């Protein structure tokens, strides 16, 4: 009977230990998931020059990048007419994330392992897809109609979403003064919620050793808003249907 008693104690401790191991497994799993923030929602860019509580303030601009002499000369000699941002053309993520009066809608799609960023200015930005699966080969061929958004891959570093973007076509410029880029352009973005989750901080760094004097980083803040994302279709007001006066 004493042996039974001892066995029972062992059994009870064993059950407890199994539970403890399960607890630890769940704790480890939760701790890794706890770092993943939910950015779902519509955000409006904080105007540059405005201070928000906690000292949140935009810093830098794509217009302030420093080009190497050859790249600066190329920009000077580029005469392609008006800035693409003024003619309803895609301007690429480096400029798009920096725009003032910029509304975005972040929608994760966990089933397809990606996250969407939709832009109010549809024709300038359309949407970005940030993939969370394994990064494919570095270079790829572009179709003639490639929209110039690059290939974006995200991973979590604590509470921050880090996004690497590569593979930009040659019709994307780094600012409104036709600053060029090379095949080596690499954008590194860091997204995190600040201000009690009411603000999204976005730090965007451009690295291009063939073009930039040094990597350049700007910071933008987006405030969460309780609204639907409007769709601005650029110059739709200029497109009128022919409506015959037959009534």
């Amino acid at each position: 009977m004493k042996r039974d008693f001892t066995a029972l104690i062992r059994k009870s401790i064993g059950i407890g230990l199994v539970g403890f191991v399960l607890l630890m497994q769940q704790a480890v799993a939760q701790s890794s998931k706890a770092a993943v923030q939910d950015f779902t929602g519509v955000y409006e860019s904080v105007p540059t020059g405005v201070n928000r509580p906690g000292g949140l303030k935009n810093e830098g601009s794509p217009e302030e990048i420093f080009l190497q002499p050859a790249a600066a000369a190329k920009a000077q000699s580029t005469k392609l007419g008006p800035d693409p941002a003024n003619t309803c053309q895609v301007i690429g993520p480096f400029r798009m994330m920096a725009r003032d009066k910029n509304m975005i809608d972040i929608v994760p799609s966990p089933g397809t392992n990606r996250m969407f960023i939709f832009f109010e200015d549809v024709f300038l930005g359309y949407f970005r897809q940030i993939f969370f699966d394994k990064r494919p080969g570095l270079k790829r061929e572009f179709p003639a109609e490639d929209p110039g958004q690059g290939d974006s891959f995200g991973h979590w570093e604590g509470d921050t979403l880090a996004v690497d973007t590569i593979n930009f076509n040659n019709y994307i410029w780094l600012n409104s003064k036709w600053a060029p880029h090379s095949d080596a352009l690499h954008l590194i973005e860091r997204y995190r919620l600040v201000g009690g989750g009411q603000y999204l901080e976005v730090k965007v760094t451009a690295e291009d050793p063939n073009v930039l004097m040094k990597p350049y980083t700007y910071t933008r803040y987006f405030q969460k808003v309780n609204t639907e994302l409007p769709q601005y279709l650029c110059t739709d007001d200029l497109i009128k249907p022919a409506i015959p006066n037959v009534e």
Partner: protein
Amino acid sequence: MKNACALTPKEDRRQTTVETRLLLIGLALTAAILVVAPRAAAQSAGGPSSKATAHPANLEEQFSGLYGDSENQMPPGFPPYATTNPFRTIEKVIAPLLTPWAAARKEATIFEIEEVGSFCRPTGLLLRHQNRGFQLVVSPGRITLVGAQLPGNPIRRIYLNRDHPKNLLPTSAGDSVGHWEGDSLVVDTIGFDETTLLSLEGSRHSEELHIIERMRLVADGKWLERRFVVDDPKALKAPFTMVRYHEKLPADTRPELELCLGFDNWREWVKIRNDAVQAIDEQRAEVARALAQKKK
């Protein structure tokens, strides 16, 4: 001979009580760990992430995913595409239904100029959108359909938590609201402007265009069925219907996004657009002159 290990009935009862208590303590500890700990862990995770991981595999999530083009596409065993009022021949269905107003508009329409997709504008629900693939993304309160042909069918939002707004501003995509009926998502869309077309032959609709769409998964969830009822009291004598099927694609599919024009042409887009607008203005003036002559 009395067994040295034998217990008296009193000792035996005490032993049993101790055993039971130990067993209960062990079970209680395990139960506490399994039931209480996950909840506590979820609370410590701080909400959103735990919400995301806690979603059950519900119907909305089953709808979520990537879908291929619909033209000539049918699930195995379903009636042939020809029976669904196909995209390229639907004019046979529409033409007899046009009201005099719509017939006159069609007569005055030059497709190459007024099919807004020709100059890279959103084409609405009834041209490219009905036959092209898309990504269906579910988020709280809405479903977003994301097309790969950027200017033609880029982004369509279906709101699940509201009605159509009053004083709706007409747009090419209209305003879509949806609700679930059993296994189907029923989508009601109104609020269209008159920039888009009903068919490749240039049949027109008015701002009274009203599209009801029923989406459901069929063929073991491998296909999305979209049944459309298209009504427009001003342009159509009666509603017409069509059915489209989109096969679900592997979750890691990456649709190649396309601008309407290659970038070399894209930079000429402003000129293309302005030429088109000028042509439309000239055409409108010509129609007005012809009508004035007819009245005389």
